[in-house]
């Protein structure tokens, strides 16, 4: 499928989405919005923003983990209520969410086994996903026997095996060193190309967003709004070598120029 065809169809829509914590007007915190955003089917969209701007709140709302205070969120045309995670959405968190009492293979099989797939189908899918993620040799290992990067691969595999059409990633490489992040980023791009899923990546790393995403949404300080959307010129076959492209610096520079004042505002707010 070519790029133009992939992005032709809107996949996720956010209209006037806000999130306010607390009911007392004196003490309530306006964490987010209003957010207006549309993710195109099959695109890789990243969100960057200053600390505390509401990136994770936005993530939780799209994931169905938390309801919006106002506004509307749709996935494939159906509204998300925030009370349950709909089928077709897969989530990967920053923290290690692998189950330490299960082997890698059983971790990956957890969701599809629970969904009632036959053992033959579970086995087929798990084997294929482990191979895709480079974990085939570690099927019988426990997460504690793996490095942080490999444990995160297990979590990604557990998500991918369910064949989600929308993958939400909340700083999935945040706990990894820079080299591992670049390699994991390349693997993520490969998976994105192979699965055709839409990806929403939340990250604080501008270079990670610039390397991975088709489009990057820049958020303001709290309450977070989308200030700007920056498009990248890399094309679908990109990999980590784009970091040496002269245009890479232009993109991160543009992101930073939009974020600098917002980050300073966020720091000033945090210091109050």
């Amino acid at each position, binding site marked *: 499928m070519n790029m133009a065809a992939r992005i032709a169809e809107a996949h996720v829509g956010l209209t006037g989405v806000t999130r306010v914590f607390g009911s007392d007007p004196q003490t309530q915190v306006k964490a987010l919005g209003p957010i207006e955003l549309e993710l195109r089917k099959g695109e890789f969209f990243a969100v960057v923003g200053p600390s505390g701007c509401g990136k994770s709140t936005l993530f939780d709302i799209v994931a169905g983990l938390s309801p919006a205070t106002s506004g509307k969120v749709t996935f494939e045309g159906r509204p998300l209520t925030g009370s349950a995670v709909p089928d077709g959405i897969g989530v990967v968190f920053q923290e290690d*969410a692998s189950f330490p009492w299960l082997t890698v293979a059983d971790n990956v099989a957890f969701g599809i086994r629970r969904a009632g797939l036959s053992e033959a189908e579970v086995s087929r899918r798990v084997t294929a996903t482990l191979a895709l993620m480079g974990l085939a040799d570690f099927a019988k290992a426990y997460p504690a026997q793996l490095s942080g990067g490999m444990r995160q691969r297990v979590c990604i595999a557990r998500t991918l095996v369910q064949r989600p059409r929308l993958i939400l990633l909340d700083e999935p490489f945040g706990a990894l060193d820079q080299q591992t992040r670049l390699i994991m980023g390349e693997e993520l791009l490969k998976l994105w190309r192979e699965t055709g899923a839409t990806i929403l990546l939340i990250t604080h790393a501008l270079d990670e967003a610039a390397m991975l995403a088709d489009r990057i949404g820049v958020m303001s300080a709290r309450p977070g709004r989308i200030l700007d959307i920056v498009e990248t010129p890399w094309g679908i076959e990109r990999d980590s070598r784009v970091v040496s492209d002269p245009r890479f610096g232009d993109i991160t520079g543009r992101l930073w120029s939009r974020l600098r004042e917002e980050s300073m505002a966020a720091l000033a707010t945090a210091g109050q």
Partner: protein
Amino acid sequence: MRHAAILRLAIIAAIVALLELLSRSGVISRFVAPPPSEIAVDLVRLLTSDRVQAAIAQTLSKITIACGAAIVVGTALGVLIHRSRALAQTLSPYFGAYYAVPIYAFYPLMIAIFGIGEAPQIVIGFMLAIVAVIVNTINALDRIPRVLRKTVAIYGMGSIEASWNVYLPYAGPYLATGIKLAVAYSFIGVIGAEFIMSRIGIGHEIVFAYNNFDNEVMYPLILFVLLVAGTINGLFSAWEKRLLGRRSRS
């Protein structure tokens, strides 16, 4: 690790050999402390006795009831207390001071409430064991990371399914610590209670033999208690270690 285990066994073997030597050479009176080999032979003989078998069955039944009840009730209370931060903070000092209270001081009260029979002994075993289970359940639930709670939400699990498939397996090794302590405390509670308020059971048989200078019964039964408690504790420790082994880098 293997060397440490060998060393531990060697220490026990050395103590047993020393006692054997001191007793057989007459340095220690055989009446005060018979040779361990004779105690072992007496134990084998005693284990065929109907009276001792009945006492063992009685004691182990009471321990099983006390321990089982402490595990079930303690786990349930631990889950309930964990749900209320205020309640956990209020009760925490009591749990901390609980084992400073000599439970046996309440035995007249137990008899007044539960009568003369097996119930007071079971209650003492239960009371000694339950707080270890409550504290370790709260500790285990405290350790469940937020990301696992989010993962449970992602899978759309209800609270029972989440507890059974995620929270309990995650908390397993820490709950195992509570279960191991519950077994040990219920042993102490029940056998200790049998010393002072029973007419049947291993504790009663040991006291009866002591009062009648019957070392051929007293020492073998003490050895039996040591062997059973040590074996059960060792099995639970191995289980706990196996569960924890999967959580640490090899």
